[in-house]
């Protein structure tokens, strides 16, 4: 029983780190229509920045600085925002398909830099001994797992609450207007480039934060964690959960991650050991299948976009009826 709860906490914590990434992608794609297929790049930047900021000083690579975890997370969010703002300043004017190519290229460049800048990132060996929240309690897996779940859940909830607030604000309304018809929004005085850049940077910040939270939870990061398959997973989560809906982003992350973990367990159980490395590719097939099924049966995702209106509009409606 205790093992089950421990595993549940571990699973949910990891799923919620993906949920944060998914919330970031929802700002960019769901709200604003920015086709970012470089999610892994921003997540990786966040994970590495936070690891460098918080790990103890090491002679063989840059840093670490041994600062508190919270500082690392803030630095990760800032780095994600700066990276997105710089990339966006160059590419945000591009049409959707070209933006996709540019962001994909960016993520590949980030991954190759991380792999090869050994004096900064540890290269292929990655960075280990990243401080974990409540690391002193790691001897008791149950308490440790539950406390970590609480922290990650609190971060997820905070990001969710802030994004919900913005989604229902005039800022969120302008983002949707630009997504729906950029020329009409421009005629109404909205500087589309500026708003798209803001949304892109905000999404980058959230992805960077998610990368840091995940890195600190696992305690170890390496370049192969930030390959395009991560981007694919986060996209699958958003599509399954419901693009444009913050709750859908979180639900989609949990559902798809459960699917991913379950198919991994299934493959481990039924495939002979010598074939398992190859069979693990089936997990990707399963996710593809899940996307197809959701798109066929619930084209708008498990939770579709809400008919979002300002809080105050609802006040008015109640008053009238």
């Amino acid at each position: 029983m205790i093992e089950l709860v421990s595993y549940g906490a571990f699973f949910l914590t990891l799923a919620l780190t993906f949920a944060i990434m998914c919330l970031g992608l929802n700002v960019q794609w769901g709200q604003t229509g920015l086709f970012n297929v470089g999610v892994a790049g921003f997540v990786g930047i966040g994970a590495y920045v936070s690891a460098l900021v918080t790990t103890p000083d090491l002679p063989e690579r840059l840093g670490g600085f041994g600062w508190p975890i919270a500082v690392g997370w803030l630095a990760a969010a800032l780095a994600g925002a700066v990276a997105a703002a710089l990339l966006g300043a160059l590419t945000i004017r591009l049409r959707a398909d070209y933006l996709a190519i540019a962001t994909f290229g960016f993520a590949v460049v980030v991954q190759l830099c991380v792999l090869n800048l050994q004096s900064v990132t540890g290269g292929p060996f990655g960075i280990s001994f990243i401080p974990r929240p409540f690391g002193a309690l790691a001897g008791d897996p149950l308490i440790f797992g539950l406390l970590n779940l609480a922290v990650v859940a609190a971060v997820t909830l905070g990001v969710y609450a802030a994004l919900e607030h913005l989604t229902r604000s005039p800022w969120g309304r302008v983002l949707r207007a630009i997504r729906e018809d950029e020329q009409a929004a421009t005629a109404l005085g909205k500087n589309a480039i500026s708003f798209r850049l803001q949304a892109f940077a905000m999404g980058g910040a959230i992805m960077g934060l998610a990368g840091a939270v995940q890195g600190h939870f696992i305690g170890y990061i390496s370049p192969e964690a930030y390959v395009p398959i991560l981007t694919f997973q986060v996209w699958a989560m958003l599509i399954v959960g419901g693009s444009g809906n913050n709750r859908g982003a979180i639900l989609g992350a949990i559902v798809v991650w459960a699917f991913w973990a379950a198919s991994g367990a299934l493959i481990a159980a039924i495939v002979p050991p010598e074939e398992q490395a190859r069979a693990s590719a089936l997990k990707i097939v399963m996710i593809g299948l899940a996307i197809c099924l959701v798109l066929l049966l619930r084209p708008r995702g498990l939770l579709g976009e809400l008919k979002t209106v300002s809080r105050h509009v609802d006040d008015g409606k109640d008053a009238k009826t």
Partner: protein
Amino acid sequence: MPHVIAASGLSLSFGGVKAVDDMSIQLRRGEFLGLIGPNGAGKTTLFNMLAGTYKADAGCILINGVDASRGRASARIGMGLGRTFQIPRPFPHMTVIENVLTGAQNQAAETILANFLRIGKVAAQERAAIDKAKGILNFLKLDHLMHEPARVLSGGQRKLLELARVLMADPSVILLDEPAAGVNPALLGFIIDRVRDLNARGTSILLIEHNMDMVARLCHRVVVMVGGRYLTEGSPQAVAANPAVIHAYLGVAAQ
């Protein structure tokens, strides 16, 4: 400043095609000006230059006395110029009232930080904007559709919705691009009525329209464009009787 729009020498080419060639147009304050011409005359291209969507190759545009020749399209509404589109461009998945609220200007909450740091001001602005939006929707008889997504509106209602969005910004001049096209006669009468009402309240209007009956009922003055150039101008009656205009529209010499 008697002119809300004073544009002179405007030219724009697409590749080898001169869509607008050395065109000048003035809109007086409070005037209802018609812009007519056969298809391909360059009317909408001229509109798009006035609205900042296209940058003119040459020429000068003054809006309420301010040089807007190099200005961005998104800065136009702040200068007092609003426009509608020939084919309506609603935000289809947003509700009707949200569409209209998007037209509100100078909203503090269109910056990220204000939403967290100036909650009181944001709420007050939003409530004021909602009251205003409801008033405009009432004026345009769209209030019963307020909470419907804009994609369910009919073609004519979409034209009204575009007008409602623009009215949120209190423009001093509105460019109307074929508001009558594809609108059923009953609704058309209502649109004409409301547009005339706006003009009577002091909004200057530049209207592109093929429906000559509507032009004759609304416009004080009509400018005729042909082949990207200025042809003539005058009262609707004088222009309609002008042999050169008839020739341009029908391609035959007037009898």
